[in-house]
């Protein structure tokens, strides 16, 4: 893949990632308030799994592109170290989405929400607890990363006059 093509693909994936993140985030905030076992809750959970899987797939592709076609610094006013730091955090943001997806998949699988073979019981409360804890931890991680990136962007704007609110790179 050529550099220009990779750059374009990276931009599209970033926007897709951002949109899916928003959808999953709204779902994540609303779903826990709906009573367990209700039909509405089941629908929201299935939608969460569906949208989350897409977000993980997009993040995987984005990380692949990032590794093979690292972003190039194009802000003249931004010092090298600040540029590296913010991209370092953004790279980890995508990694946390992937980790979130894997732990979420394990959680759904061990809760019986995802089944690949009929009649085979995959319910495992021990695995559900571990993967659930990790899913929650990675959720906190990406929320913190997003907040830190936003604060850094604001700092860059005030200090170096580099205006960008791009969190998803």
């Amino acid at each position: 893949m050529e550099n220009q093509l990779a750059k374009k693909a990276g931009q599209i994936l970033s926007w897709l990632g951002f949109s899916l993140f928003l959808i999953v985030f709204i779902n994540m905030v609303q779903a826990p308030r709906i009573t367990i076992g209700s039909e509405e809750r089941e629908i929201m959970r299935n939608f969460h799994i569906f949208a989350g899987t897409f977000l993980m797939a997009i993040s995987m592709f984005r990380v692949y592109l990032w590794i093979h076609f690292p972003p190039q610094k194009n802000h003249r006013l931004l010092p090298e170290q600040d540029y590296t730091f913010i991209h370092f955090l953004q790279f980890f943001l995508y990694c946390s989405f992937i980790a979130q997806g894997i732990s979420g998949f394990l959680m759904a699988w061990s809760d019986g929400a995802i089944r690949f073979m009929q009649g085979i019981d995959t319910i495992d409360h021990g695995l559900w607890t571990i993967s659930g804890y990790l899913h929650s931890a990675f959720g906190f991680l990406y929320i913190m990363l997003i907040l830190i990136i936003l604060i850094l962007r604001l700092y860059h704007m005030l200090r170096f006059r580099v205006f960008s609110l791009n969190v998803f790179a």
Partner: protein
Amino acid sequence: MFSLDMRKYVNNARGMHWLFIVFIIGIAFYLPFLIFGAFPYNTKTNTNPVEMEKLLDGIEAVDFYAMNQYLPKSSEEIQKEIDAFETWEGGKCRFCHAVKKDDRDRMAPTLYGIFGRPAGVGNNYTYSDALINMKGNGLIWTPETLDAFILNPSNYIPGNRMRVEGIEDPETRKLIVNYLMRESKPIKGE
């Protein structure tokens, strides 16, 4: 796996950047415990039958569920109990606790057959030291002790991991206790 450019890219990030990311990963892994009281693994067996017998030794056997006959019977009242226990606007209890025998275990211990049971004995859950101490102190869950606990959990058992505010309204607490009396009744012989 990493291309040469990526290696250069990562190497450019200073040690402080790595330290920072490790630090926030550490915080992220602590937050589910701090905010939700979650624990990353379960203790399969907390109490064996011999220990259980010892815990209940000398305690008058009371079948709390026998009092179910005095519970309100109107569908309106039953719906109120369900709302108090299960909804976000009510006590939020159902979000973490299983109640019936065939309910899937959730983040908190199951409340199936809770009345007459010593504290901290449910299996498949890792209890806080506070609950384990209360087990040693002989706390038995009764409608009265449960009511006192949900009034102010952190005051009744300091250091427990049920991270919810107490329910001040006595009517809501009564509805929750009634719900549990009705729904968590163990199947005969268990």
